[in-house]
């Protein structure tokens, strides 16, 4: 190629830069947009925080209450985030010195969220730290703060069968109540059969509310299963594989399980006997995981110890104590550290933190970490129990509105 051609080609290339400069010169100096419709949609669906106010308290019994929530417009939440029936919101509370979170399923229908209303139903836990506080303190007008809706226990047409068998225990009935409501009002197009396990007849949550839904639709069925009471019209015993087969439809179905740890583990075993294809069984823990001591791979000599936990956040360091039977998250909450968390069952990853030194035990059933995280020393504090003195780096829980 001749030198002349090269000169011409180089000139041609340089002209690109002139074009670029011309485009810049011709451009406007108007301020750039601060937001865009798609970003607005994101902030409506997934606000970092929802500021709520209690509109009404419904007392079902001494230990069961529903709270009707509305947006706290003064604090900046104009509307409630829409959700998929079965999702939860995680409340953020300051109790004494502790900053804690607790997830509660939204038991009202998604359609109600469009009218700026959520309802949650809470079962008081005996000596419960948060539920006791809620029962003592939440009244009409109380401002409360929660996360955006989260969780994956919802009907997904490309994955789930058109028939859902819901296995619920205790407060685990709440997501199914929402799904049943969404079926009744035409939002969801599935058939739902719920097997609801309670100890006694008067422990059944939301019975009158359910009757109303059942009268509106033929697509929802509810079978109460009582372990302690033997009453006509109710199943007696536990939710076993045989019982599921007795009520499950003859066409293919998906099973959704939601209940406290003990029931969840029992039902898991029963469901395995049905030999359903993988993916037909979905579950969510409704409640705390509890102590790790019963896990077969738990190192016995770490039992009943109190370890030293060093928590580094940004350029700040604090040393606290941590009990071997409580998660690292709870240890931090007890010490008044504002640590991030959402689901509290190992799944969402919001509590992800870096292990600098020491050892933790992460029970397999709640270890939802990414593979590389296990390799590079990251833990989910809600699903990690100290088995030595431990040092961790925890991100702040910055609740500034991420879309602000």
């Amino acid at each position: 190629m001749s030198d002349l051609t090269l000169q011409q080609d180089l000139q041609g290339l340089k002209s690109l830069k002139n074009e670029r400069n011309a485009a810049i010169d011709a451009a406007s100096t108007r301020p750039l947009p601060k937001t865009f419709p798609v970003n607005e949609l994101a902030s409506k669906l997934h606000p970092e925080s929802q500021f709520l106010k209690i509109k009404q308290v419904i007392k079902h019994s001494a230990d069961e209450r529903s709270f009707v929530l509305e947006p706290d417009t003064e604090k900046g939440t104009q509307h409630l985030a829409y959700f998929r029936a079965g999702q939860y919101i995680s409340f953020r509370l300051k109790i004494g010195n502790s900053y804690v979170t607790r997830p509660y399923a939204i038991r009202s229908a998604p359609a109600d969220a469009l009218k700026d209303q959520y309802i949650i139903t809470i079962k008081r836990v005996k000596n419960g730290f948060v539920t006791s506080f809620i029962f003592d303190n939440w009244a009409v007008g109380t401002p409360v703060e929660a996360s955006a809706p989260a969780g994956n226990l919802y009907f997904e047409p490309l994955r789930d069968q058109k028939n859902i068998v819901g296995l619920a225990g205790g407060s685990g009935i709440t997501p199914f109540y929402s799904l049943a409501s969404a079926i009744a009002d035409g939002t969801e197009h599935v058939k739902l059969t719920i097997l609801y396990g309670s100890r006694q007849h008067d422990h059944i949550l939301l019975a009158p509310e359910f009757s109303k839904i059942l009268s509106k639709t033929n697509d929802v069925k509810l079978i109460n299963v009582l372990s302690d009471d033997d009453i006509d019209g109710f199943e007696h015993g536990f939710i076993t594989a045989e019982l599921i087969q007795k009520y499950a439809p003859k066409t293919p179905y998906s099973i959704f399980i939601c209940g406290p740890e003990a029931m969840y583990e029992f039902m898991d075993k029963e469901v395995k006997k049905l030999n359903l294809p993988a993916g037909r069984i979905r579950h969510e823990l409704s409640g705390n995981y509890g102590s790790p001591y019963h896990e077969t791979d738990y190192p016995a000599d770490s039992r009943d110890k109190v370890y030293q936990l060093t928590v580094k956040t940004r350029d700040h360091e604090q040393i606290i104590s941590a009990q071997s039977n409580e998660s690292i998250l709870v240890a931090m909450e007890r010490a008044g550290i504002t640590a991030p968390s959402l689901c509290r069952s190992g799944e969402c990853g919001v509590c992800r933190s870096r292990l600098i030194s020491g050892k933790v035990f992460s029970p397999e059933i709640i270890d939802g970490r990414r593979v590389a995280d296990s390799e590079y020393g990251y833990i989910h504090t809600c699903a990690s129990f100290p088995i030595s003195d431990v040092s961790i780096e925890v991100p702040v829980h910055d609740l500034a509105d991420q879309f602000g």
Partner: protein
Amino acid sequence: MKKYDVIVIGAGNGGLVAAATAAKRGLSTLLLERHNLPGGAATSFTRGRFEFEPSLHELANYGTPEMPGSVRQLFDWLGLHVKFHEAPGAYRVIKSGPDGFDAVMPTGQEAFINKLEELVPGSRESVTKFFDLGMESLMAFAEFQAKPNNIDWHAIGEKYPHFIHYAKRPYKEVLDELNVPQKAQDIMMAYWCYIGVPGDDFEFAYMGMMLVAYVVMGAYVPTTRSHEISTAILQTLLDNHGDAWFNTEVNRIVVENGKAVGVQIGNETIYGREIIADVIPTTVYGKMMRASDVPERGLKLANARTLGTSGFLVYLGLNKSPEELGIKDYSVFISKTADSSEQFSATKERNKQNDFTIMNCLNLADPGCSPAGTSVLYATKLYFGSSWDDVQPENYAKVKDEIAQQVIDQYESATGVKIRDAVEEIEIATPETFARYLRSPEGEIYGYYGHPWDQMLARTMAINEDDQQMPHLHFCGGSGFLMDGYSSAYQSGFVTANMVAEQLAKQEVTK
């Protein structure tokens, strides 16, 4: 509070490498990230027993230990120990409309050319010429991309005259000039989607280089998803005494006398001698700066540009193995038309016209990526975020399920592989998802659209001017000089950190 040499905003691919590079060069470095994970789009997420790759299709410019590409060299310099798997074959492209075809293209220059000759007899000569040109581009790039702020174009031109000759001409135009038969062109057009610029707009230098790089050097995926790479780069930062603060949102870049001096997080200001933003300028100038502080050239440039496309992805965890399902390809491009301009135009609207879909089966590249007896598929489509402007919260789930259903149907009918009944887990990402997690305007994933004056060559030539919009403020990432893509963003982070280090060294001398 201590003052840092370098504050990096955003731990995406560009920001991670910028921070790790600065720290490795001995600069005190603080990396700030609003999310609780590093990587931006280069992350992973779990559903049931699957851990999904959210964004990476194939890492380009990695290469082998014997023939390392720029990214491998960079990773070696950073001291990363990430295990990669080479993706088998280049790609399969299925044109499902009238005059359709189905081409399974191998890697390796010779094999690729042979295959094309078999599918399009008579294409050998022109395609061989194409490879020569693309190779020259690749070599020219390799020479200047590590130091793009100081290029002697004349010297490059003497060494790589064809590169300079064809550089800014549109890809399609050059293929025409080389007499590459139409069908061969169709097959060689597929990669436009990785940058989001159609073949008749896309400068030859870059697109030719890209195809040749993938074919000759192969493409790679990390063993435990992109999250592994991101975590490893972060580790280099930490090992070199850098700090990384997650869940930390930068609200504002603090400007004094027209110069960037620090950042504001919450009520606190943190000072840095140099600030690197792995955040698109539209957001920096639109939201993170007082209007009176915004530099005129930066503002005008941002206004002159067009936001790039966003994406729509369907992630599928299947309860059968690829063998059981009959999946044979890592990467399949499917569309009724092979015309990249038509494919591109269709991304501006949310309707069935937009049928260009890439389907990847990760197990074909990395068999251990999901439990035995399962497989992972993910489909990718491009959409301009604005085509989702009308979506409301209450119909959002329905909209995404409908498109996901179309994607599954399209894949099944184009390949004959039945997947619908094997779906164990599914997740769907949309422009909303990217707006949520990346915070990008309109959920863009590709930075700015490549107008001819705003593609790789023009950006490279303007790199110093672009860097001088405001003293002590620099940019890197997917909107950088090499445009979007993992390799490009990594490289731009590296280059920006090096430019910053040079400037800091000069300041030392003048002191």
